């Protein structure tokens, strides 16, 4: 079973449908602590303000459960603000810490470009990751965000995208990966990423 962490934030209906399209048979949108620890893989969505997301996750006690799942080695996929939550903190809401599973902070997009960064942009993979296997270099994915992660460790950077300079599009290591783009909204290419994730973790 793949658990989509339901803390009242994000386009959960689309995410669930996309995972089914990608071949997942058992997907549960859940805030049950039992489900999250019993899952073969956990997806952490997120949209809107970092502080609101981090706060709601904490209020429901789900920050602890995601951390425990991570410590037990359950594969964890963070999407958009769900990716940003994996890190220590965000410039958007400095008072509200993230999960700190990846070292680094989240900063506002810079440069003479439109913000939010909205639309399809080309992703450059800089370090192979099994869930992105089969994605051709410079494939297009759908982005919509105003902030992006800046990992402390360059080795955690998996993919970048150019919007006013290099922006981190994917980061993490091993069984934990954050994607700044929305694979559930990225057409056939997005479905193929989710399919790799489903096959690698929940098959």
């Amino acid at each position, binding site marked *: 079973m793949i658990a989509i962490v339901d803390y009242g934030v994000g*386009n*959960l*209906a*689309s995410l669930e*449908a*996309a995972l089914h*399209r990608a071949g997942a048979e058992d997907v549960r949108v859940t805030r049950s602590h039992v489900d999250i620890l019993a899952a073969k893989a956990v997806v952490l969505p997120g*949209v*809107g*303000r970092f502080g609101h997301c981090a706060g709601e996750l904490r209020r429901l006690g789900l920050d602890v459960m995601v951390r425990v799942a991570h410590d037990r080695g359950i594969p964890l996929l963070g999407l958009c603000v769900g990716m940003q939550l994996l890190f220590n903190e965000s410039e958007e809401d400095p008072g509200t810490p993230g999960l700190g599973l990846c070292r680094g902070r989240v900063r506002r997009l810079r*440069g*003479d*470009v*439109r*913000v*939010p*960064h*909205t*639309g*399809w*942009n*080309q992703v450059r993979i800089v370090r192979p990751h099994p869930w992105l296997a089969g994605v051709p270099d410079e*494939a*297009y994915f*759908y*982005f*919509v*965000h*105003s902030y992006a992660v800046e990992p402390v460790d360059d080795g955690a950077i998996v993919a970048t*995208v*150019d*919007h*006013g*300079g290099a922006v981190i599009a994917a980061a993490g290591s091993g069984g934990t990966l954050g994607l700044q783009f*929305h694979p*559930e*909204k*990225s*057409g*056939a*290419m*997005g*479905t193929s990423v989710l399919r790799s994730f489903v096959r690698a973790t929940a098959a």
Partner: protein
Amino acid sequence: MSTMLSKRVIPCLDVQDGRVVKGTRFVDVRDAGDPVALASRYDREGADEVVFLDITASIERRRTVVDLARRVAESLSIPFCVGGGIGSVDLAAAILRAGADKVALNTAAVRRPALLGEIAARAGSQAAVLAIDATKRNGGYEVVVEGGRISTGLDAIEWARRGVAAGAGEILLTSIDRDGTRDGFDLELTARVADAVRVPVIASGGAGSASDFVELFTTTGSDAGLAASIFHSGEVVVSDLKRALAGRGVRVRPSAEAA
């Protein structure tokens, strides 16, 4: 601007009581009036996004528009926006919860701009699209509502700025003068609004051919072009349009990837 961000092509479907209103070319689609089947078709052709404009007037409207969002979310693999008569945060939230990525507000935002911020606070500014219908008047552009029947006295460029300040994360800009004419997008209007705000601007109204999209993207700072009838009639096929744009040096997501 340094970005590899591509320009978006967006088909728009007018929906009434859960059915597509205007005729379409897709004879092989079993139910050409089904918005889900048609949107899926555009998805496969390489559309970057789909906008649904719900014009249902009955008291069933709330149920049908939420149901539409739910059904579309189950099949579509690209983002979609729902607009038309959304006047409350509750309805906007219900549509977003059902699976829409964005809601577009028009008249309701003119009446009460704070609605944009209230939606943005709940779902993020990217989900709050300000739809502006504008008409040329006295050398400037005026905002009109109710399909152009009612003038607001608002300057379109100024209203775009205010809407963004109020919380809108994107502008869907329609030239009422060009809408349905196929004379091309209103480039002056589009350029002025795109230059006035930092959020993405979707141009709408007047698209008649692929070259209108080329002109839009090569002469204005807009991020996306929206059209309805030319796609529905089959005069312009999304995948052909993408190829034409790429051939003219406009960065687009190739349709082959979406196939």
